[in-house]
């Protein structure tokens, strides 16, 4: 939904890095935006600590939150065929992350600009080591940094949610390539910092129509 107060949508001084290996999801209004129709936010659980490498090693904490889960609203679950406690995977242009589904009314669909926007939420404490393991949620985000201390944006993005476990190995790469091709992701996608002036911010020697590795032009 457009911010009605300003013509500029988004922080004009944010650091973007248009690179082949740093794809971003399309912005609103860009081609391919509908491929990732849901809003993903991430934050913390009480039981774990940041990236979880330490807290996942502790039995008393691991048992309190033993698995990565994605919270979805009942309406979204119906729309996407998700079952409570079933497996699902959250997909962005960068990665696919598998999580158990938590269907809850705390996730409320929003009504913006005359349409329904679903939001989902995940905690980001999981990784490959420890007593409890899971996929790394922050893999879903591209590298876009704030202009002051260059902290990566890892809290909000768009995504798709699909039922079932995610593919692995070569099949995972194929899924991501398929998704990027569907959305027409290039190195220039969502690198326009100044609204209304479509100038992609690219790294040197990167061409605007460079696509992510493996994606045909």
């Amino acid at each position, binding site marked *: 939904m457009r911010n009605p107060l300003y013509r500029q949508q988004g922080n004009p001084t944010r650091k973007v890095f248009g690179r082949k290996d740093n794809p971003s999801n399309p912005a609103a209004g860009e081609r391919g935006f509908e491929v990732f129709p849901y809003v993903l936010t991430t934050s913390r659980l009480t039981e774990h600590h940041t990236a979880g490498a330490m807290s996942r090693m502790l039995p008393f904490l691991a048992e309190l939150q033993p698995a990565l889960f994605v919270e979805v609203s009942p309406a979204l679950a*119906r729309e996407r065929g998700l*079952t*409570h406690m*079933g497996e699902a995977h959250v997909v962005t242009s960068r990665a696919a992350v598998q999580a158990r589904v938590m*269907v*809850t009314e705390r996730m409320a669909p929003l009504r913006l600009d005359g349409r329904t926007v679903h939001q989902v939420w995940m905690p980001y404490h999981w990784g490959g080591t420890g007593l409890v393991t899971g996929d790394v949620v922050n893999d879903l985000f591209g590298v876009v940094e704030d202009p002051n201390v260059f902290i990566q944006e890892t809290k909000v993005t768009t995504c798709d949610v699909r039922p079932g476990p995610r593919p692995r190995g070569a099949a995972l790469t194929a899924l991501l390539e398929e998704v990027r091709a569907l959305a027409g992701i290039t190195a220039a996608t969502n690198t326009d910092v100044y609204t209304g002036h479509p100038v992609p911010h690219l790294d040197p020697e990167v061409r605007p129509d460079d696509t992510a590795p493996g994606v045909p032009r």
Partner: protein
Amino acid sequence: MSPSDRPGDAVPADPSHVSVRSRRRRGGAGRGEESMVPEAEFRSYYGRPVLKPPVWEHKIAYYMFAGGLAAGTAVLGAGADLTNRPALRRATRLGSLGALVASIYYLVSDLGRPERFHHMLRVAKPTSPMSVGTWVLAAFGPAAGLAGAAEIVPDRLRALWPARLLTRLARPASLAAAATAPALCSYTAVLLSHTAVPGWNEVRGELPFVFVGSAAASGGGFGMIAAPVAEAGPARTFAAVGAAGELLAGRVMEHRMGLIKEAYEHGHVGRLRKASEAATLAGLLGTLVTARRSRVGAVASGLALLAGSLLQRVSVFEAGVETTKDPRYVVVPQRERLAQRENRSPAR
């Protein structure tokens, strides 16, 4: 209600709310009348149990059967001794000893720390039926053990002084066992009822009668199997009275049940109870009709009574366990009780 498999089902909306369930009609099916009891709607924590299921295994049910059998055969053994029925005396004293040994095995092996079984003897606690039972067994056990041991002394050793002492002690021991036998076969009902388990606690008024009837039926049944027809008269009478009592008390018990009736009537438990009733009834009829005339008939009747008694204990045990697994057996009756109290004296 476990997390649902249907798409879109939430951590259930107001997850404490479980769908309305209606009470099943009592009595036979097809009577066509509306249930007179109101629909039982209740809330719970995600449908999870409120109580913990008993940690006891089926061994406890087998113990109750064996204990009842030991008690029933003990009184028969004492009576046979006093009325000059040596074959019956020998059979029932040995049966009592065997059942006693089995009882002790089942009891001790069902403990979480069997090597600490003797800790039961630390206290004598009237509020604990298990403590009461420990001391009843402490009295019954040696007595029945002595009486049984007297029967298995080999002939070539009988002249030795320990054997002669044993033989002399046999009658007083047998009488002591018989004196404690009624307590042995009735306390087990209190053992089950003196718990929070709805399926056991609610039938506390009738269960003692079911169990002693079962004990008598099994004791008499054993006497009919192991003793010749000529001497087994008292066993037949005892068995018949016990079986009739077990059946009657069982029917009364089921008639007076509230919600727990569903646990007793449906599924596996329901089948066990029907089988128990059928076996006991068959045994009763056989005792009355054929056991007096034919040994074969007596053995068949006795086996049927033993089977009925065993199935009785197992089905009651399993019914109780069943009632701890569904929260409605706890929540619904307690809610009703609260509502009744509130009606009588409205909330302050």
